[in-house]
């Protein structure tokens, strides 16, 4: 549709005069808008980079239960909640996943570093249990990596 939209230069000039009339000088009128667009672009870029990469993520520290295991319940819906989980090394970790969506993307959860994986039927609680014995950051994810979380072992 926009391929077909042929505009006349005059129409655009008239329009910009009428709606955005800032100055009579055409040479200066356009650059102002353009500068605004460029500045917005820079601001948006910084915002995106900050929000997705640089801002610190909220971490969930797992308490040790009476039985000695570190238990945490994780909801799977568009993502893992909580998604950054801090545990202690050398103690068993018991992660209970509940998947609350039917999208096939999230039907499996994988911990490749621990060779653990589980099928998550919708609405069912599925527990994964293993003992991390080395400190470090280990990712967990769905099969194709659309949903991601992190297990931090301290």
């Amino acid at each position, binding site marked *: *549709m*926009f*391929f*077909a*939209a042929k*505009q006349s*230069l005059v*129409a*655009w000039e008239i*329009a*910009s005069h009428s*709606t955005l009339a800032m100055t009579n000088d055409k040479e200066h009128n356009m650059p102002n*808008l*353009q500068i605004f*667009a*460029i500045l*917005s*672009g820079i601001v*948006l*870029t910084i915002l*995106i*980079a900050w*929000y*997705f*990469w640089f*801002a610190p*993520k909220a971490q969930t520290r797992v308490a040790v239960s009476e039985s000695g295991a570190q238990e945490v319940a994780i909801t799977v*819906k*568009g*993502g*893992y*909640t909580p*998604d950054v989980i801090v545990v202690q090394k050398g103690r068993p970790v018991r992660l209970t996943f509940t998947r609350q*969506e*039917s*999208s*096939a993307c999230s*039907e*499996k959860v*994988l911990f*490749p570093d621990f*060779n653990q*994986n589980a*099928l998550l*039927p*919708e609405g069912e609680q599925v527990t994964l249990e293993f003992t991390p014995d080395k400190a470090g950051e280990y*990712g967990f*994810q769905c*099969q*194709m*990596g*659309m*949903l*991601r979380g992190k297990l931090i072992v301290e």
Partner: protein
Amino acid sequence: MTQRDPVCGMEIEPQSAFAKREHMGQTFYFCSQSCVDQFDALTPFPSPSGRGEGGEGMTSATTGFNPQMTLTRIELPVSGPPLKEHSTHLEETLRAVDGVDEVKVNLTAGRLEVQYDAGKVDVARLVGAVKSIGFQVGGANVKIGIENLRCASCVKFIEDELKSTQGVLNATVNIATQEATVDYLPQKTTLSQLNAAIETWGYKPRPATSDAPVDKQEEAHAREYRRLMNKFWFATAVSLPVLATAYYQFVPFLRGLSMDTLRVLWGLTALLTLPVMFWSGSDFFTGTWAAFKHRSANMNTLIALGTGAAWLYSTFAILFPSFFPEGTSEPFYDVVAVVIALVVLGQALELRAKGQSSSAIKKLLGLQAKTARVIRDGEEMDLPVEEVLVGDVIQVRPGEKIPVDGVIVEGSSAVDESMLTGESLPASKKQGDEVIGATINKTGAFKFRATKVGKDTALAQIVKMVQDAQNSKAPIARLADTISGYFVPIVMILAVWTFVIWFVVGPQPQLVYALVTSVTVLIIACPCALGLATPMSLMVGIGKGAEHGILIRSGEALQTARAIRTVVLDKTGTITKGKPELTDVVVSDQSSVISEELLRLAASVEKVSEHPLAQAILEGAQARKLELAEVKDFEAIPGHGVSAMVEGRSVLIGNLKLMNRERITLGPLEERSKLLADDGKTPMFIALDGKAAGIVAVADTVKEDSAEAIKTLHSLGIEVVMITGDNRRTAEAIAKKVGISKVLAEVLPEDKSNEVKKLQTEHAARNIAKHPRGTQHVVAMVGDGINDAPALAQADVGLAIGTGTDVAIEASDITLIKGSLKGVVTAIEVSRATMTNIYQNLVGAFFYNVLGIPIAMGMLFPFLGLLLSPLIAGAAMAFSSVTVVGNANRLRGFKPTIQ
């Protein structure tokens, strides 16, 4: 005062007794567990109602029990913490429950026998008490579907009815799923009795939706597919009128309409596309929001942003046309509807294609027998295979599948184990032999005792191992993971700058061009194709390996196996059968006997011997159907051989030392024996009545297909090395036969891993000299998994030759369950095919994005005046991930070059 143990008769102090029992008014003391178990077995609880569980007060006067009490007896199989240490704790806990009369723990059987007052306490309470201290109550769990279960109050009736059925531990009915879940003791009740309980309330039981994860997943996929297709059809239906109004210039009735009328029509399409966005495309928006909260972004984010921006711009444009330059106030609702329809369709097709990739697992599970003919209390009954317990005796008739793993207790047969071991000839099985579940009984009928059931059977372990491997990660996926971690925000930033650049330096009308190009960028970018590339191929490839008897432990093993350049083969049991066989019978020129007679006499003597070589001679004679004779005066002479009298003749069988000791002249036989030894055989001289009569030779023979497999390895450009503890002469002989030129002989078992290490460093050094940054020289070791475990672990890829049952060989990266060396070739071929497929997928997905995004940004516009329509971008994005899954499915056509 000491007491006498009534079982073994030992004198013991009551205080230090292992256990005590009250029986018929007397107290008995026992020295050990086995004594008390024997006693318990002989003196069962006097059941108040004979054998029944009804609990009517019909007690025999001799038992000393109060006949007024309504006592019920139950046996519960328990598992959990070691019973030995905790049995007292368990007994005390149960005795503390009100209504429990007597408790016995039978350690050897792992059973708990409880006698209780059914009026005061029920089974569920008892089970609860057992569980409260950390034990599990064994027994089966079954789900039964109930048809047309609507009234909520009936739930309670059915539950109670089930609970009161004997042997039922617990029962719950879920009205939402229309299913009853029943925990029960399979010894006490059967599925048909449970079904009958449901029928008493007028409901029809049906088999519940299968509990097998694969079936469950398939069902979930089918549901999800329908859901997606509904969304797709709705979006498509809306797309048609929306497209018509968007391209009104080309539609006869709309062409002539005035701008104002069109604007009203557009307003209507704005409303029409709302349900497309928030129903058909709801996943994109909820997914975006969920990810956004976690400070992450994914494919949903891109689609939601793209369609959302198009809708908002369009709505703003038709509501406030005066804000926009003439001709730029046209809407893009078509982008919203069509893109959502296409992406949803893509997801549905992807799901369908994914279903095919798990076919290998389904095939494996299909090998499992459905029912077993179990003999309990002398009665034969057909039970679902899930109900078979360890210790059950199962009857198998000719032509039937063996349901679980076990040991034959009666009868014999030939069993076709080809599906698990690859051995094409049926294996003969007699009493005491192991049988494997899922194999097929050919000729005879037999009874066997189940030793492994459920998830412990060999087949279940294979399935588990394959599934784990399918879900593991190949190192190559890490790159894709790293990229996709940054992918979406980068695309968002690119979309921002596309907008800015078109707005600043683009042609008229800038705003429209800027918006359309940036929306196209958001839509065409496809992180999914990148994320799917490795796991899909891995799933199909590893499944394909399993179909050919090759269990690849992980994606990493598969990736490494692709680059195998040197294969080290253990000799015994890998290249050879690992068992000596009779190969030659040589008759001395001076002797008057014929070779059959000589063998018959030798075999008659060896029949008595226990030497492994003797077994080979005996089997050789049996294979030739020779009648063996009686043996007298048998004598084994250690380090030399044997002597005996057969049919009045003195027979000597042994080595050169024996012949020299007996002063027997060998003549030309000595030369013959050297030739045989050069050929890798073990010759044994035979003397009859003090004269040299001949030689029998045995050897560990080469498997029929070893030479062919090694030839194929050579043709794949792989160096083959043989490693063995045998002497060089024997080793060279075997090597020549199978076409191996490099032999490492006389290697002690513990030095095998050092030899592998030497090969690795040697090649690494040469490799670095040749290609400084070249690929790694991968050394694989093939061995038996037990003696060769250290060498398997040392090698870059360890391939264990299994025997069907021991699949979980820890040291190996790949297990070849069919004992043939062809498996090594197939393993390498599978890994090569899978890795090639992964590369295709990754490169395809990578180039799709690397080319697609710049075109969407309008890079071609200045040169060719070409711009990509967002509708085409939507189609491309939807089908890029379908293509990846489809390409992975091509692997299903993989065929090994040698069968």
